[in-house]
């Protein structure tokens, strides 16, 4: 989250000779990042990013404390003028006030670890003093009136949100903090009707109406208005997980909720309460008229951490002196105590850092960042050999090789979401049942984990209609096949789609196998339902199916709203990489003459079949090449040669005759 505060406001707590720009530079390096700084009139506005663990610093006081620790490291003077956490305490309250008002409170420490409230009477609603109006406006908060402004001013000063009710609108002066029931309704200050998901922290008054969506926004029915005379100042700590959940589900992402959901310090409620009361009495003319209520059954206990210099050394990599360590940590609010063990230092963790700091590494981070990461050298760790599993290496190696090869053939690599829609699944004849689905999917388009890549490639072809006429795409990606009581089988697949021709697709597949030096693969007729009956094949090695290719079955072409035929191939990538070889098998160069003979014939036999017969029939046959096919006429080129002597043309013709007889 980001907060905006002004430089002059900061100077109320901090004595420093640093300029606003120096503060920006140095804090960004060693503490909260000041993203922008803007000069407005005589003041400067800081826009500061607060990390989720440092909600304690999301305030003017928090930032001045960071300045106190960081700026001196850059030779700048920086000291807190006073510590508001020590200045404002219940001890300062005048308990002799005449208590004519009361509150009847019922709360639950599980939801609400600390509850504080007090009634102020006879307030006068008016505009705030100018300095408050100006500071709030510069900080991006709209000034409304003296009462509402105090609550915002207090939050930005000390980082503790508060709420102020119109006392007279709380029926029976009864406040019951409880969990909401599912479906209960409440209208918040911004006049939105919120239907509660259930289990939200709310406050009910004496007539059963909900007057507050706790930690997020007050109810409209108990809001302070122009006519308000008596108010309740109300400062709480809530269960942070519940606040976040309610805020996310209801969409009410308020500034208050962004504080509460990070977990606030119950101890800070006290100074904030007293300071808030002080401001209200000063600017509204009201006087406290009830006891100050403080329900805090489990106060935060003190925690300490032991630390030795060598611990610090070991993580940071440079030696930092004990004096420097103590100075850095104490300026951040950690109390240094003498230890019985002389080798170790003991630090007491301030209550507002207890969520964040629990082990010595946490303290070392504080030391290192204030010391300055920019002051540390850049070193490379010593080299050491770590074995990469061979199968992993092969998989990555061939992904690169294959991607480059396909690219050079003219294909475009695409990457699609792993998640697809129900429609995409059904359009290729599958059902969602065999897919893993997301339980909290944000869109029906990305609800199921794909088990194949075709559906995505089909979508790519359709989406690219009219953008380019000839499309050749490929994708290498994991698919996710569900298993019982286990993570899915993440099968890596290669898929290709072209909208040009079957022959082109087959050519791509064949060239790939050739490039990978896979010599023993065979093509058989396929029977995959998704592909056209007579225009598909499977690639087989040693009776193991590696992949399929063919024209998309016209039924699915229509179903997927495709105007023209498309041609698809899918290959199991892991098997492909396993079968691939860096080098082909070397054949010694033939010493004897090779005679080439062409043959055109009409046959019903498949090319694969002809090849098998031909090689069986002639020992002189070295190679067969497919030249052309026109209607039923097939033209082939035969290469004849002998391993032991030169042959003459007639010998070759003799061989071809034998073959022709058998294949016609």
């Amino acid at each position: 989250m980001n907060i905006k505060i002004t430089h002059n406001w900061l100077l109320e707590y901090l004595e420093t000779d640093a300029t606003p720009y120096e503060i920006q530079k140095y804090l960004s390096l060693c503490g909260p990042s000041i993203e922008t700084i803007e000069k407005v009139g005589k003041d400067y506005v800081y826009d500061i990013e607060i990390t989720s663990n440092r909600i304690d610093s999301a305030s003017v006081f928090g930032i001045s404390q960071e300045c106190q620790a960081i700026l001196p490291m850059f030779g700048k003077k920086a000291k807190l003028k006073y510590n508001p956490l020590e200045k404002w305490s219940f001890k300062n309250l005048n308990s002799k006030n005449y208590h004519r008002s009361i509150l009847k409170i019922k709360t639950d420490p599980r939801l609400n670890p600390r509850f504080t409230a007090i009634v102020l009477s006879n307030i006068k609603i008016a505009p705030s003093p100018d300095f408050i109006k100006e500071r709030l406006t510069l900080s991006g908060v709209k000034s409304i009136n003296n009462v509402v402004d105090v609550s915002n001013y207090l939050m930005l000063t000390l980082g503790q949100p508060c709420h102020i009710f119109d006392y007279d609108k709380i029926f029976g002066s009864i406040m019951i903090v409880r969990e909401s029931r599912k479906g209960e309704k409440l209208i918040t200050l911004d006049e939105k009707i919120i239907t509660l998901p259930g289990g939200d922290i709310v406050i009910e008054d004496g007539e059963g109406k909900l007057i507050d969506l706790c930690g997020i926004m007050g109810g409209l029915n108990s809001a302070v208005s122009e006519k308000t005379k008596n108010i309740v100042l109300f400062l709480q700590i809530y269960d942070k997980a519940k606040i976040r959940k309610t805020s996310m589900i209801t969409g009410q992402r308020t500034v208050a909720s962004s504080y509460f959901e990070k977990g606030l310090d119950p101890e800070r409620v006290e100074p904030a309460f007293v300071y808030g009361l002080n401001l209200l009495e000063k600017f509204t003319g009201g006087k406290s008229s009830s006891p100050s209520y403080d329900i805090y059954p489990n106060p935060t206990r003190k925690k300490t951490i032991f630390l030795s210099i060598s611990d610090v050394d070991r993580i940071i990599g440079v030696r930092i002196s004990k004096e420097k360590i103590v100075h850095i940590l104490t300026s951040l609010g950690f109390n240094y105590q003498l230890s019985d063990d002389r080798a170790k230092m003991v630090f007491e963790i301030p209550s507002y850092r207890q969520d964040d700091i629990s082990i010595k590494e946490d303290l070392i981070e504080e030391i290192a960042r204030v010391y300055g990461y920019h002051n540390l050298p850049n070193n490379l760790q010593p080299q050491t050999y770590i074995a990469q599993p061979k199968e992993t290496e092969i998989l990555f190696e061939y992904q690169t090789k294959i991607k480059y090869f396909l690219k050079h053939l003219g294909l475009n690599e695409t990457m699609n979401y792993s998640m697809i829609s129900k429609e995409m699944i059904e359009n290729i004849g599958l059902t969602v049942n065999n897919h893993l689905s997301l339980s909290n999917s944000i869109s029906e388009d990305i609800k199921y984990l794909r088990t194949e890549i075709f559906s995505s490639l089909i979508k790519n072809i359709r989406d690219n209609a009219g953008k380019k006429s000839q499309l050749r795409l490929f994708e290498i990606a994991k698919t996710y096949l569900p298993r019982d009581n286990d993570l899915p089988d993440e099968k890596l697949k290669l898929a290709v789609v072209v909208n040009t021709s079957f022959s082109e697709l087959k050519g791509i597949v064949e060239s790939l196998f050739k490039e990978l030096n896979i010599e023993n693969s065979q093509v058989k007729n396929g029977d995959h339902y998704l592909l056209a009956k007579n225009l598909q094949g499977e690639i087989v090695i040693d009776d193991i199916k590696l992949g399929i290719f063919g024209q998309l079955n016209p039924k699915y072409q229509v179903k997927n709203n495709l105007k023209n035929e498309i041609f698809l191939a899918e290959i199991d990538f892991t098997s492909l990489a396993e079968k691939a070889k860096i080098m082909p098998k070397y054949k010694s160069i033939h010493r004897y003459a090779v005679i080439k003979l062409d043959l055109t014939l009409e046959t019903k036999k498949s090319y694969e079949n002809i090849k098998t017969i031909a090689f069986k029939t002639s020992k002189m046959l070295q190679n067969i090449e497919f030249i052309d096919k026109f209607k039923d006429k097939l033209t082939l080129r035969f290469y004849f040669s002998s391993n032991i002597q030169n042959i003459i043309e007639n010998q070759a013709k003799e061989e071809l005759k034998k073959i022709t007889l058998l294949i016609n």
Partner: protein
Amino acid sequence: MKVDDVLPNLNNELKGTKTLNELENIIIKYLGRNGLIHDLLTKIKNIDISQRKEYGQKINNIKNSINQLIEQKKTELVNKKNEETTVDITLPGKRFPKGSLHVITIAIEEISKIFQKIGFIRMSYPEVDWDFFAFETLNMPRNHPARDDFETSFIDYPENKKWGKMVLTPHTSNGQVREMWRVGAPIRMINIAKCYRPNWDPTHTPMFFQFEGLCVDKGINITHLKGTLDYFAKEYFGPDCQTRLRPHHFQFTEPSFEMDITCTVCKGTGYLRTPEVPEVAAGTSGVLSKTKCKVCKSGWLELGGCGMVHPAVLKAGKIDPGIYTGWAFGFGIERVIMIKYGIEDIRYYYNGDIRFLEQF
């Protein structure tokens, strides 16, 4: 042919010769193995002995003249040939197919190589994993916001008693404890994988790529993380690139940092050089203007999170944090591509638009 007719004849023939091939035929006709000169020389035996010497000399002179004439003609023809070829060389040549790799593939290759050079192996871990590896062992308490429905995509699957819920990995860090279990220590690993978060708007895609580095060994400290990331940034973005670490917060590292690099547009100055034309501003010419760079925050760009491996994570990885320390980082690949190549339209990365894909 009569001896005296040879040269006039040749001259005539050469006049009509237009190509080097035709000249080659003339050479064969006159000087070849069975050519005219050879003919005339064989006739020497019919000549009276007293005149043979003179005849021989004459033929030799003719032969020399032929050679000279032919050489002249050859030079003429070669020069002509060299000059007469006229092609519009600005016309395109024969077209070969031009395919493309996905931008992510290109970046993965660049990144893997950079880390390979300093001894990091690339590993691959599940993209659908158990809560145990994605959160529990990464020091994320059960009610941590990252573990809720708004930050992580969960799989509709029965919860496993030992490993918890099944999730789509929201980061590559699920590989950390898995790698620790695989090799123990020392570790030098990068893990590049798809990650998923329930976030889909103009600047977020529900799937994205992260690359993660993990180094565990005796004596590893912050200076090593700083040094490695500075090395990476200079290799990937260029030797001028400056880096810095800023304090940040992540559950699985302690201390945690955000890594920044100097902005590639304003070269770390925070100001544009020529305010009207941002493209030109990337150059080094021009005078620094008062216009702030719109790409970066005061000269720096955030790259991503990193830190020293949290002792709880080492413990979960069965590595003794008293003996070993480590660092880890996880950056978005789309982010580094955007910074290096300026390809900002993230919605095109994964929608298969050919006009995007074919450019790379």
